[in-house]
């Protein structure tokens, strides 16, 4: 079953084409790495997939809904987390969970029960009443991820979720991603850490608004005769005509 299926998706801002006719699909339970240089069009593409931005052309289905016509339904059925914004720092841990549960319509009784289990799993029971801003960054990111999939979405979009996180926590975070994918949640993730590209089932690399490569890390390395994903990335990004403008 496909959770994302887009065809010829395009977004133009005036005379600038940010996303240029991209087509791809993502399977259920897949960990899909969405890579590209700064300015390659990742954020714009991701906004369209999340129902936050209307495409200039092309069509797409996310989580069973049309990105041109059913953006509100898409928003309700996906999870989203980014490094820049994840939780409300001035709210307590439990308040954040309840807020998200409320926004995504998780019934109150279920939310109460599940927030117990969640805090237990994260080892955060003692921090239940702490303000999020008092938690170390690593805990905050792990909590943010758990909260973003609290309503059991079909797919979760993670925008640079591990930026600035210490190397041990970064790996623990990926183990949470594996677990979520194992439970059937599709994971769509961007990152600037090329070792993390290796943890994805498939990876796409955007250059100047187009998807220039899409395959498993192993076959990309073969295709580009590269030792590492870092090398694949550099070989592709060198082809960019826009540079960074």
């Amino acid at each position, binding site marked *: 079953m496909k959770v994302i299926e887009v065809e010829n998706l395009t977004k133009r801002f005036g005379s600038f084409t940010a996303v240029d006719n991209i087509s791809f699909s993502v399977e259920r339970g897949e960990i899909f790495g969405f890579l590209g240089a700064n300015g390659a069009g990742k954020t714009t593409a991701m906004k369209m997939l999340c129902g936050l931005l209307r495409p200039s052309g092309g069509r797409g289905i996310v989580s069973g809904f049309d990105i041109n016509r059913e953006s509100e339904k898409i928003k309700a059925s996906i999870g989203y987390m980014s490094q820049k914004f994840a939780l409300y720092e001035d709210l307590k841990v439990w308040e954040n969970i309840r807020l998200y549960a409320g926004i995504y319509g998780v019934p109150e009784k279920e939310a109460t029960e599940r927030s117990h289990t969640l805090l237990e799993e994260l080892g955060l029971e003692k921090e239940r009443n702490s*303000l999020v801003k008092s938690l170390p960054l690593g805990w905050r990111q792990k909590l943010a991820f758990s909260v973003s999939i609290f309503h059991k979405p079909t797919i979760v979009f993670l925008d640079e979720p591990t930026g600035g996180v210490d190397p041990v926590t970064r790996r623990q975070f990926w183990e949470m991603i594996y677990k979520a994918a194992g439970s059937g949640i599709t994971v769509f993730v961007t990152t600037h850490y090329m070792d993390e590209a290796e943890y994805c089932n498939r990876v796409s690399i955007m250059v100047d608004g187009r998807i220039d490569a899409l395959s498993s890390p192993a076959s990309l390395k073969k295709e580009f005769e590269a030792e590492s994903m870092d090398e694949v990335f550099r070989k592709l990004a060198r082809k960019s005509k826009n540079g960074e403008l």
Partner: protein
Amino acid sequence: MVCMEESNSKAISVKALAKNFGKVMGGGDGSASGAVAAVAGISFEIERGEIFGVIGPDGAGKTTLFRILTTLLLPDSGEARVMGYDTVKDYREIRKIVGYMPGKFSLYQDLTVEENLKIFATLFNTTIEENYHLIKDIYGHLEPFKKRRAGALSGGMKQKLALSCALIHKPEVLFLDEPTTGIDPVSRKELWEMLGRLKKQGITIVVSTPYMDEASLCDRIALMQEGKFLMCDRPQAIIDSFSKNLFSVKGENMGALLEGLREAKGVLSCFAFGDSHHITAEKDNGTSSAVTAASLKAELERAGFEGVEVTKTEPSVEDCFMELLSK
């Protein structure tokens, strides 16, 4: 830590430097979780002409340290000298000779590229022309857009402008706070090439980063966590001091393999590491119980794993940092 001889010939010398921040309020019961030590008694020195990297995750205290060294923040205790000047008493002198690029874009968004650069040049009593050779490499990319407002630049261009502004008065010491955070691998590489060229001009560079792979590009690095330097040395010396044996393991089902390895005899830690898993084990001292590549492979195969490859491998700075964190 490290060598502590008193000398004004050092670019930077720091002794028992500490800075605490006020209490963060805890729960609804009004309990406070205490003051946070952003910098917890650090001592170190930086040689003139060095590229010194402060490597650590967000919240480690990197920015606080930078702000003390650039005289923007007063320490609670300890002392810091930049080119022989005291950061508290001689702050005016220091401000003339350092360049600082903060982690957050802090230029005038409503002014053009050229106006921003002119302001910085004028403030430091110089002109763009006088030190153009220093920024040519970097500002060259920006010149076609010099009439554009700074706020309308892309992330990478803003960063180039900020670096140009930090360099225009020909500083003796350049502080760069996380210049590569959120920047793609290609642009990161370009930035490091620029830093290499600035070093050749004799500028001392202090740079912070959360990316462990940038460690090897520094002459010396400090691994920072919770306000402390866990280690401070040449990258190779840090790697050489790694006290365990490190193995790299690949197999068919990497997810299950991670679990399997954690169960395996003699495995101290196991983490995913790009396309393989890295595991640590005690160094073999000739005992029969020591983990070897062959013994590990045999054990994994007995547990039913297929296509297993185990190789003894050299640690990276990231392995060292992870080892230090788990202590």
